[in-house]
């Protein structure tokens, strides 16, 4: 599976939009991009998933350019409760291969 690279940490303030970019240069045709969020002492929680272009749900938006070698998770108007680790993962569109988590991006939201 494609290796992902994302910033180790980011800081933001309440009310700002936060964009976390992940690179996955070796993504394969059948791969999807998926993002999870993890709060301290909790299990990861699925946020959003996409294949190409833009996906939006009630929590976030995911932007994927045409070459799919990167993706950007966009969190609108963050609050203190969005402080967490955000993981970008690439997963095969078929089959049963388990998800592999990297180090993620630690987002700290300040008041």
């Amino acid at each position, binding site marked *: 599976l494609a290796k992902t690279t994302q910033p180790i940490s980011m800081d933001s303030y309440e009310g700002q939009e936060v964009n976390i970019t992940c690179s996955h240069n070796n993504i394969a045709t059948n791969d999807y991009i*998926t993002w999870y969020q993890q709060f301290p002492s909790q*299990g990861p929680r699925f946020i959003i998933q996409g294949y190409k272009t833009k996906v939006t749900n009630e929590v976030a938006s995911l932007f994927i350019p045409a070459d799919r070698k990167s993706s950007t998770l966009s969190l609108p108007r963050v609050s203190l409760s969005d402080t967490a680790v955000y*993981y970008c993962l690439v997963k095969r569109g078929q089959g*049963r291969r*388990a*998800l592999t988590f990297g180090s993620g991006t630690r987002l700290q939201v300040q008041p």
Partner: protein
Amino acid sequence: EPEVTQTPSHQVTQMGQEVILRCVPISNHLYFYWYRQILGQKVEFLVSFYNNEISEKSEIFDDQFSVERPDGSNFTLKIRSTKLEDSAMYFCASSEVGTGAGSPLHFGNGTRLTVT
């Protein structure tokens, strides 16, 4: 919203003892997983389970570990002869189908295992 539940939330055991960590996956899910996270480190895949057999396992999941689905609702991880380095948060997860498109993993809140 249905949840994956794990018990106990915290388990303390002595080195060399056996522990069983328990999980109740979401009821209509078919795939089950165990992950672990050593404090301050990555979430590491241990094993996946489907149709009453191991589907995939990592190099961490050696003979010390075993999984079982003893009935229609529980999914357990047994760790034999625990070592200090087994101290970690263990997460159970389930998914409706395999981790192909459209089937996210749902994680429980974990069992913190402390080996003394």
